C-alpha cells in the first residue's frame, strides 16, 4: 500500500479550497433558514398535522423539554419497531432484533452517535434501515443544529426569555437544509457507483464456477445523510470501506467533503447571526487549524507504518482498501473522528498504534474541529467562554462574551459541560477494565486491549460511533454501558448549553470597554486553540499513555 505524499497534499488542498468556496453561500443560506419568518404552505400543513403552533417561541426550559421529549419518543419508537421487525414488512426475512442490540441501536441513532453493535447484513432489513435508522440520521443531525441555533440566539438576543420554537427549527433544518443537500449528494453517489435499489442480484461466473448473491438496498439515500449529517452508521457492516457505500477514491473524497461541509459553514452563520463576522471567522480558523494539524499528524503516523505484523507484511495493507490508498484513508480517518461522524474507510483497529491514538485524541477534543453538525460549534463556543474566563482572570476583570457577563451561573454551566464527557468516558472505561467478565469482549492483548475499551467509551460519549472493531460490544454489559455513555454524552451537554442560552438571552448587552477581551483575531484564536488542546491533554493524557502511547513507544 502506497502512502503518496503528492496525493495527500493534493487532496488536502482540494478539500480546503472547496470548503472555503462553499462556506459563505451555505452559511448565508443557513442564516436565511433560521431567521426567516415565513413558513411554506407544506410546512404549515406539517405543523397543523403535528399540532405545532409555529408562531409561539419557547423559553429555554420548554425548548429543552421539546428536545428531550422528541429524542425520548424517537428512541422508544426505534426500539419498539426493531423488536417487531419479524412481523413488519421489508424485514428481508430477519426476525425481531434482540432487546440489548435494539436498545443500544435506538440510543445510538437518536444521539447522532451511530455506534453499531449490530451486523447490518444479518440483523436489520430494508424497513429498519430506511424508515427508522436513516430517518434518525436526518433528525438527530437536525437536533444538534437546532441546539446551537438556540445558543446563538441566546448570545444575539437581549432581555428576553424566548429562544425560538424547537419544532419549527427542527422542521426547517430537516426539510430546507438536510433534505435537499442529501438528495443532491445521493444522486452524485449513485452516478459514482453507490447502490440504490430494493433487491439482491444473483450472479454466476460459469467459467470459474462461482455463484454470488450481490446485495442491494436503498444505500445511496442513506449514505448521503449518514455522511452529511455526521452520523456514520453504515448500511453495511464494513461501513464506508464497503465498495457499495464507497466505490472509488473520488466518492471517498466527496464523502470527506460532505462530512466537513455543514460543521465548517455553521461558524459563518454564527458570525452573521451575532452581527460580527469576525467572531465566525475566528471560530472557523481555530477549527481549521486543529483539523489541518491533526490531518498532517495522522498522515505522518499512518505513513510510519509501525507494527510488527505490518513490518513482516512489507507495509501497510491490513484494514486498508487497495482502491483508496493510504493517503485518502488517513484523511478520512481524521475527518471522521474530528467530527462526530464515525464512518470508516479503513479498519481503525488495524491502524499503526500512534495513528489509532490520534483518532482517539480527535474524539477527546470533544468533536470540535469542526465537530458534529451543530454540536461542534456549541462545543467550541463553550471553550471560547472558558477562554474569556481565563483571560478575565489574567486581567482581573469580570469576563464577558459578546457583551454578555459570564457570571457564576454561566461559569458553573460551562465548567460542568467541560467535565461531563471526560467523566463519563473515564469512569465507564475504568469500571469496565476492572471487570474480567467485560474484558473478555476485547480479545486483544497488552496495551491494545485497553485501547479497544478506551476507544469504545470515547467514541460513545463523544457521539462519534467509530470503533476499534476487535471489541465485541453486543452483549448486555457493553450494550448497556455504551448506551449510557451515548445518552449522557449527548443530553447532559445539551441541557447545559440550553440553560446557558437561556441565561445569556435574559441579559442586557453591556458595551465593550478598554477592559473587554476581544473574542476575535489571532490573539484570542491562539488562546482558544491552547485551551482546547490543554483541556483535552489534562483530562485524557494518563489514559492515553496506558493505551496507544504505550503501544506506540514499546515497539
Amino acid at each position, binding site marked *: 500500500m502506497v502512502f503518496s505524499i503528492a496525493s495527500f497534499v493534493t487532496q488536502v488542498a482540494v478539500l480546503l479550497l472547496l470548503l472555503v468556496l462553499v462556506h459563505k453561500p451555505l452559511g448565508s443560506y443557513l442564516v436565511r433558514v433560521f431567521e426567516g419568518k415565513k413558513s411554506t404552505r407544506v410546512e404549515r400543513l406539517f405543523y397543523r*398535522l403535528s399540532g405545532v403552533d409555529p408562531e409561539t417561541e419557547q423559553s429555554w426550559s420548554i425548548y429543552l423539554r421539546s428536545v428531550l421529549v422528541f429524542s425520548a419518543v424517537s428512541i422508544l419508537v426505534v426500539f419498539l419497531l426493531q423488536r417487531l421487525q419479524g412481523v413488519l414488512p421489508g424485514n428481508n426475512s430477519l426476525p425481531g432484533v434482540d432487546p440489548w442490540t435494539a436498545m443500544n441501536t435506538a440510543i445510538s441513532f437518536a444521539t447522532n452517535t451511530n455506534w453499531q453493535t449490530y451486523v447490518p447484513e444479518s440483523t436489520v432489513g430494508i424497513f429498519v434501515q430506511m424508515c427508522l435508522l436513516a430517518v434518525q440520521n436526518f433528525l438527530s443531525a437536525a437536533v444538534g443544529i437546532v441546539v446551537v441555533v438556540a445558543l446563538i440566539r441566546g448570545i444575539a438576543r437581549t432581555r428576553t426569555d424566548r429562544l425560538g420554537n424547537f419544532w419549527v427549527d427542527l422542521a426547517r433544518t430537516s426539510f430546507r437544509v438536510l433534505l435537499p443537500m442529501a438528495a443532491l449528494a445521493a444522486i452524485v453517489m449513485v452516478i459514482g457507483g453507490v447502490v440504490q435499489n430494493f433487491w439482491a442480484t444473483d450472479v454466476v*461466473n460459469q467459467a470459474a464456477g462461482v455463484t454470488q448473491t450481490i446485495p442491494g438496498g436503498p444505500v445511496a439515500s442513506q449514505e448521503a445523510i449518514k455522511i452529511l449529517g455526521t452520523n456514520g452508521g453504515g448500511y453495511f457492516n464494513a461501513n464506508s470501506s464497503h465498495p457499495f457505500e464507497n466505490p472509488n477514491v473520488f466518492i471517498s473524497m466527496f464523502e470527506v467533503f460532505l462530512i466537513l461541509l455543514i460543521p465548517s459553514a455553521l461558524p459563518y452563520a454564527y458570525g452573521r447571526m451575532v452581527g460580527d463576522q469576525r467572531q465566525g471567522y475566528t471560530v472557523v480558523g481555530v477549527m481549521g487549524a486543529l483539523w489541518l494539524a491533526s490531518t498532517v499528524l495522522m498522515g505522518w503516523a499512518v505513513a510510519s507504518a509501525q507494527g510488527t505484523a505490518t513490518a513482516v507484511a512489507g507495509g*501497510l495493507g491490513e484494514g486498508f482498501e487497495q482502491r483508496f490508498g493510504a493517503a485518502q484513508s488517513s484523511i478520512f480517518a481524521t475527518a471522521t473522528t474530528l467530527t462526530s461522524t464515525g464512518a470508516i474507510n479503513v479498519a481503525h483497529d488495524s491502524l499503526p498504534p500512534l495513528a489509532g491514538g490520534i483518532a482517539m485524541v480527535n474524539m477527546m477534543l470533544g468533536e470540535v474541529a469542526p465537530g458534529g453538525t451543530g454540536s461542534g460549534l456549541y462545543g467550541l463556543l463553550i471553550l471560547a467562554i472558558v477562554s474569556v474566563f481565563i483571560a478575565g482572570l489574567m486581567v482581573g476583570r469580570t469576563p464577558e462574551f459578546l457583551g454578555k457577563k459570564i457570571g457564576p451561573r454561566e461559569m458553573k454551566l460551562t465548567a460542568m459541560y467541560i467535565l461531563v464527557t471526560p467523566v463519563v468516558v473515564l469512569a465507564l472505561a475504568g469500571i469496565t477494565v476492572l471487570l474480567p467478565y467485560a474484558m473478555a469482549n476485547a480479545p486483544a492483548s497488552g496495551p491494545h486491549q485497553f485501547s479497544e475499551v478506551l476507544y469504545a467509551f470515547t467514541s460513545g460519549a463523544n457521539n462519534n460511533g467509530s470503533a476499534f472493531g476487535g471489541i465485541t460490544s453486543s452483549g448486555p454489559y457493553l450494550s448497556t454501558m455504551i448506551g449510557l455513555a451515548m445518552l449522557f454524552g449527548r443530553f447532559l451537554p445539551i441541557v447545559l448549553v440550553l440553560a446557558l442560552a437561556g441565561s445569556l438571552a435574559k441579559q442586557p448587552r453591556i458595551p465593550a470597554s478598554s477592559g473587554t477581551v476581544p473574542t476575535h483575531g489571532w490573539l484570542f484564536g491562539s488562546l482558544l486553540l491552547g485551551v482546547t488542546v490543554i483541556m483535552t491533554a489534562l483530562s485524557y493524557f494518563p489514559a492515553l499513555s496506558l493505551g496507544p502511547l504505550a503501544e506506540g513507544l514499546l515497539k
Partner: protein
Amino acid sequence: MNTLFGYLRQAGTALRFLFLATVVLGLIYPLAIFGIGQAVAPFQANGSIVRDAAGRPAASALIAQVSANDAGTQSPLWFHARPSAAKWDPGASTANNLGPNDPKLLDAVKTDRAAVAAAEGVKESDVPADAVTASGSGLDPQISVAYARLQVPRVAKAHGLSPETVQAMVDRRTVTGLEAFLGQPSVNVTELNLDVAAATPAK
C-alpha cells in the same frame, strides 16, 4: 400536574412529527432517489453488474469474486484477490480488526506470505503487502499492480495463453490517470478474471 400535562402534550406532538417526518424522509426521499438512479445511472444503481459473453449476470465489478475451496485457498487457475476476513462473501462484509502488533495477525501474515511465494514460485521478499493483508471490507476487488504481475505466468499457463496476452489484459484493467494518482495504481481482479475466461476457449 401542569408539567406532566406539558410533557404528554409534547410527546403527542413528537409522535406525530416523527410519523410525518418518516413519510417524507424515510419513504418519499429514498423512493425519489431510487427513481432518479434508475433513470440516470441504472448500471451503478443496481450494483455495477457485469455480464459474461452470453449476456448472463456474472459478477459485480465492485465486489471481489473468488474461486476458493472451503479452507479459503484460492483456485490456482485464476488471479487471486486479497485475503478476506469475510471469505469474499458479499453478504458478510467485515475486517479482521486485529491490531498491527497482534500475534494472530503476525502469524496470518507469515503463513500467507509463504503460501503466496510458493504458489507463484517467487521469493518471499517479492510478495507485496496487499497479497497478505485483508481489506477493511473483505470485498475489495482491487490488488496492486505488483501482485497482478506476479500472478501472470501462473494464470497464463493454466489457461494456455501467452504471458504477453495475459499481461495485456492486466494493463487494460489497471487504474490509471487521476484515479491512480489520488488513490494508487490498482488492478480489478473481478473484471480481469472475466476477461481471462472470455479469452479461454470453453472446454
